[in-house]
Structure formats: C-alpha cells, structure tokens
C-alpha cells in the first residue's frame, strides 16, 4: 500500500468511533464504508473495534442485593443527618447548656453554700502556725505541741490545701470564677493574716 493509502487508512481508523457512535454524516459514512470494504487492514480494525464496543455494551449492570445495604440501614437508623442534628457541641457549650438548665436559685444557692463550706474548712484547717518549729515562742501553751505535732499539722494542712485546690478547679470548670476563686483566696489570706497576728501575741497563739 502506498503512503497515500496508509494515511487514508490512518484517517479512516480515526473515524471508527465516530462511525460506531453515529456521529458521521451520510457522506462521511459512505466514504468510510467504501474504504473498509476495500481495505482488509481497516476492515479488520473496524471489526475489532465493533467487537470490543459490542462486548463493552453487553456487559451487564450488576444487581445490588438488599443485603449489601443492610449495614447502612442500621447505621442510618442510629444516626441522624448532619444538618438535622447540628454540628457536635464543644465541651464548653455542653457544660454551659447543662448549667443553664439548672434553676437559677439552685445554681446560686449551691455555689454560695459550696463557698461557705470551703471557707469553713479552710478556717479549721489553717489553725496550726506556719512558722518553723524552732521559731516558736516559748510559752506554756506552745509547749504543749511538740515539733512532730506541728509538722504533722502542717502536713495535714498541705493535704487539705491540695484537696481544696482540686475542689476549686473542679468547681471552676462548672461555674467559672464568678463565686469561688476570689472569696476562697480572700478567706485563705485572712486565715494567714490571723495566724501572723497570733504570732505577735503568744497568748493568743492557741491551737484554734
């Protein structure tokens, strides 16, 4: 076949898909078919393309059985679509919502009671002097407490303080710093202040 014939074969073979899709005009179809009937190479190529195309189109649609989608039904039964349920709330929003759902008087009353309990606990805990045992003023009342007793009291005070700090943190998470932190701090400061005052007056430096 001449190079002219080869280029014609090339262009005819480019038109195979167009012919199979019915995209060619009648004139183009005539030229195409007359060439294919005369050229065995193009005829073979055309037949191959047609066979492949027919085989592709004959491939069946795959049936999707019910059992395939069963897991979806159970999942969708438990889960609501995104917009309907809204985006997931943050922890802060959830806590705020929970607190807001509590009646107002209960919220404030509970907080005040909690603060009062904490303050009383602190005032009972901060009774032991915070000075080093060696610095204690010698007096009859002070002599009743050995250094071991004072160290033990300090240790207990530290434990109490740790507990109160934890309690404070937990309460702060619940109600913020509206009621708790400042009064507690003031109460503790006042206790220390009283302890310092008693230090200056040995007669008042009792256990309570």
């Amino acid at each position, binding site marked *: 076949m001449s190079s002219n014939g080869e280029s014609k074969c090339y262009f005819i073979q480019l038109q195979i898909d167009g012919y199979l899709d019915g995209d060619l005009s009648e004139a183009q179809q005539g030229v195409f078919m007359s060439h294919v009937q005369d050229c065995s190479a193009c005829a*073979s190529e055309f037949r191959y393309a047609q066979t492949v195309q027919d085989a*592709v189109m004959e491939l069946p649609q795959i049936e999707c059985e019910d059992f*395939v989608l069963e897991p979806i039904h159970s999942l969708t039964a438990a889960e609501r*679509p*995104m917009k*309907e349920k809204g985006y997931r709330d943050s922890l802060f929003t959830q806590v705020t919502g929970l607190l807001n759902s509590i009646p107002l008087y209960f919220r404030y009353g509970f907080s005040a009671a909690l603060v009062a309990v904490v303050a009383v606990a602190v005032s009972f805990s901060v009774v032991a002097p915070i000075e080093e045992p060696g610095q204690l003023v010698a007096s009859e009342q002070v002599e009743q407490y050995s250094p071991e007793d004072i160290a033990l009291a300090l240790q207990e005070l530290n434990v109490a303080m740790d507990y109160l700090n934890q309690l404070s943190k937990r309460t702060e998470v619940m109600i913020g710093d509206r009621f708790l932190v400042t009064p507690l701090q003031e109460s503790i400061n006042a206790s220390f202040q009283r302890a310092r005052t008693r230090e200056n007056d040995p007669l008042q430096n009792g256990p309570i």
Partner: protein
Amino acid sequence: MRALYQQAIDQHRHRVLSFAHYSLRVREDAEDVTQEVFIKLWRHWQKIDHEKLGAWLMRVAHNCVIDHVRKQRPQQTNLDQYAEVEDQVGEESDASQLDQHHFKRQLQSAIKSLEDPFRSIVIMRDIQGMSYEEIQGSLELSASQVKVYLHRARRKLRENCKLRQLFEEQIADNSAAKQPIGLVASNDKGNGHVQ
C-alpha cells in the same frame, strides 16, 4: 426524609455498584464502596442539590473508587493473578463459549487497567449508558473533554495486547472453520495497533 433517602437508594444502587464493580473487579470491594457512597449520601443529605443527585452519587463513587485503588494497590497484583488463574479453570467447556468468556473477562480486566478518567468514562458511557451531561456533572469535565477522553479510552482499550490477541485467535478459528470472505485479520502493514 427517610422515605426519600430509601427512594434514592433504590434508584441508584445498581448503577453505583456496577460502576464500583467494573472499576475494581472485586465484588466485596465494590460493595464496600457502595455502602460508603450511600452513607455519605445520608450524612450530606441536607447539603446536596437533589436535582443533581445522580451526578453527585457518581462523583462520590468515583472518588471512593480512587481512594480504594490507592489503598489496595499493593495487593492488586495478586488479585489480577487470581483472575488469570480463574481464566484457566474450565478449559473443558465449550470452545466458543470459553472464547467469549475469556474475551469478556479480558475486556473487564482491560477496562480496570485503564487510567482515570478514561476508565470511569468508558464505564459510565458504554456500560451504564449515561448521557454526556451526566458524565460531565459526575466527573466535573467539559463536554468536549468527555468526548475526547471517551475516544481516547476506547482506543486505549483496543490497544490492549491480550484483548487483541484473543480477538485474532477467534477470527483465525472462525476462518479455519468457515473460511469467511473478506474481513480477515491480516495486519501485516504494522498500523501501530499491535504492540
């Protein structure tokens, strides 16, 4: 809403499963992809333009298939080998049926081996009969791109060596049996189709 969702499932599930099946060629994987697509449909139900639901589903299916192929790539060779072993089973059955069976199996393998978007376009257009507009919407391509890619995909499919070999064997068998006139494979000019 649940009724509408169920209606959408009933309407599109075969198409989604078919697309996944011909893309992946492993039934279980295709089912996984189908489930994934419809779970996404449920989760995004309120945000979807329901007039273009079909295109949306096919786009999601297309993306899920790509993700799946990426995840499964290391195991894929073994699956193909398994498919070839399956091909060799049943040598005793009727010759012409076997030829057709081999040809179709090889054809599916050739479709699967096409790169994207050629593979998706062939499946959507030639197997599922989707319109050009639907394919455009599903793959986010222009109309001209879809047509060009479709022709290129078909040409790539025909360039598959095993497929052509099977076809030529069939032709040779037929001509030996019937001596057909004219249309016989004699590709001695080297038109560049056979590698």
